[in-house]
C-alpha cells in the first residue's frame, strides 16, 4: 500500500461522506446545493483567469519550439509542415492537432528489458496512454455537454442530437449512454496504469491520484443515480434551472447521493485552477508548441535585453593611446 494514493482516496471518500451525511443527517441542502456550487464557479473562473494572466505576463525570451521533422530549408528539401512549422498558419495546424488528437502523446515510448535471454534494454512504442487519454478526454467532454440539458429549457437541438448518438445502442431503460461507461472505464484504466506500472507508479504523486479518484467518484455517483438508485429528474432539473437563473430552489425528496455528486463536482472545479488540471489552459501557451521555428529566417531579439554599456576597442585605444605608444604597442590611430 502506498500513501501517495491512500491519502487522495481517503480524501475523496471523506468528501463524499461530508456531503452525503451533511444532507441526509444535518439537512444542509442549501449549503451543498446552492452556496458551494456558486462559490465553486467563482473560484474556478477567478483561479483560471488569475493563472492564465500570470502566464500571459511572463516573458518568453527564447524561441524554443520542439521540432520532430525537417525544418524549412532549400526548396528541394521537403519540409515537415506540422512537426516543424515556420509560419503562424502551420503552427495553428500543429496546435489544433495537438489539442484535439494529442499527437505528442501518440509518440509515447516505453523502456523495458527484453524478456528473452539477451535481457537488453529496449524502447518500444506505447500507444495505450494515448488511447486512454483520448477516450477519457472525449468522453468527459461529451458527459459535460450532455449535462447542459439540465441547464437549458427548451434543450437546444444540438444537445438532443448528441444525446441521441450517445444513447444509440438503446440498451435498457433509461438507455445506456456510451460516454458515461467509457469515462469510467478510461479513468479506471489510467488509475490502473499509475498503480500497476512500477515506473509510472514511482513518479506518481498524490496530486496525480486525487483528480483521478475524484472523477471516478463523480462518474460512479452519476451512473448510480441514472441506472441504479434513481432520482427525480424533473425535481433536479427544476433545481439546476433555479441555479442558473439565480432563483435557486431545493427539490423535494432528492437524497444525499445527488448532493454528494454536486459537491464533488464543485470540489473538482475549485481544485482545477490549483492543480495540474490547468493543462487545459496551459496547452495553448506551451512555448515549445506554439512558436514557429523560423530562427534561421528571422532575427528574434530577447525582450529582456537591456542596453549593455560596452567599451569598444576604439574607446580603449582612445583611453590608453599615450601609454600604448610609450610602451611601443601598435595603435590604429597615431593621434
Amino acid at each position: 500500500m502506498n500513501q501517495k494514493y491512500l491519502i487522495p482516496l481517503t480524501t475523496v471518500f471523506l468528501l463524499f461522506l461530508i456531503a452525503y451525511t451533511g444532507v441526509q443527517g444535518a439537512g444542509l441542502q442549501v449549503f451543498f446545493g446552492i452556496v458551494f456550487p456558486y462559490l465553486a464557479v467563482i473560484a474556478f473562473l477567478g483561479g483560471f483567469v488569475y493563472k492564465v494572466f500570470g502566464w500571459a505576463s511572463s516573458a518568453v525570451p527564447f524561441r524554443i519550439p520542439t521540432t520532430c521533422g525537417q525544418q524549412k530549408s532549400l526548396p528541394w528539401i521537403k519540409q515537415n509542415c506540422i512537426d516543424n512549422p515556420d509560419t503562424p498558419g502551420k503552427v495553428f495546424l500543429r496546435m489544433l492537432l495537438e489539442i484535439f488528437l494529442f499527437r505528442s502523446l501518440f509518440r509515447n515510448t516505453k523502456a523495458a528489458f527484453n524478456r528473452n535471454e539477451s535481457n537488453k534494454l529496449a524502447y518500444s512504442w506505447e500507444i495505450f496512454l494515448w488511447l486512454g487519454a483520448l477516450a477519457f478526454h472525449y468522453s468527459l467532454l461529451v458527459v459535460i455537454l450532455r449535462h447542459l440539458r439540465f441547464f437549458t429549457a427548451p434543450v437546444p437541438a444540438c444537445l438532443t442530437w448528441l444525446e441521441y448518438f450517445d444513447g444509440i445502442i438503446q440498451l435498457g431503460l433509461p438507455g445506456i449512454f456510451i460516454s458515461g461507461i467509457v469515462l469510467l472505464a478510461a479513468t479506471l484504466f489510467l488509475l490502473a496504469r499509475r498503480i500497476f506500472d512500477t515506473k509510472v507508479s514511482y513518479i506518481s504523486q498524490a496530486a496525480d491520484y486525487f483528480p483521478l479518484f475524484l472523477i471516478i467518484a463523480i462518474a460512479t455517483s452519476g451512473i448510480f443515480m441514472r441506472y441504479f438508485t434513481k432520482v427525480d429528474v424533473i425535481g433536479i432539473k427544476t433545481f439546476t434551472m433555479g441555479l442558473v437563473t439565480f432563483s435557486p430552489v431545493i427539490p423535494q425528496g432528492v437524497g444525499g447521493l445527488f448532493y454528494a455528486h454536486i459537491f464533488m463536482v464543485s470540489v473538482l472545479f475549485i481544485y482545477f485552477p490549483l492543480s495540474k488540471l490547468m493543462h487545459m489552459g496551459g496547452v495553448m501557451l506551451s512555448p515549445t508548441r506554439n512558436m514557429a521555428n523560423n530562427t534561421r529566417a528571422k532575427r528574434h531579439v530577447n525582450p529582456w535585453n537591456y542596453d549593455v554599456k560596452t567599451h569598444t576597442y576604439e574607446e580603449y585605444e582612445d583611453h590608453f593611446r599615450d601609454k600604448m605608444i610609450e610602451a611601443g604597442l601598435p595603435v590604429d590611430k597615431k593621434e
Partner: protein
Amino acid sequence: MKKNYIIAGLAIFVIIVLSPFWFNMVTTPMAAPKPELLGKAATTKKCVLDKYDMRANHMSLLDTWRDSVVRSSDRKYTAANGHSFNMSLSTGENSCLGCHEDKAKFCDSCHTYASVTPYCWECHTNPKEIQ
C-alpha cells in the same frame, strides 16, 4: 504568444463557461411542468408505485414489465399497495394510459422538459389518437 491573443482566448473561455447563465438570460426558459392528476386518475387515486418512486423509477418498472410480458407472458402486476394492474402501457382500462388519459400531460410534458426521448411510442400508440 501575444498577450492580446491570450486575453481574447481567455475571454472566449469565460463566456463559454458562463453559457448556462447567459443562455437563460437571452432566452425565456420553459417553466417546469406541474404534475396533476386528470380524468380517471384523479378519482381512482391508486397507482403502481408511490409518488417519488413513480417519478424516479417508472422507466425501470416499464422495462421489467416489457420483459415479463414478452418473455413470460405474465401480464399481472401486484403493486406494493396491494392493488393489481395490467402490465400495459396503452391497452385497456387497467393500463397506464387507461387511467392517466392525457398522454401529453402524463408523459410528454416532463419528457420534453428533461429532454428525454423514450422510444416507447415507436411501437405503442396513444389510444386517444386511434379514435
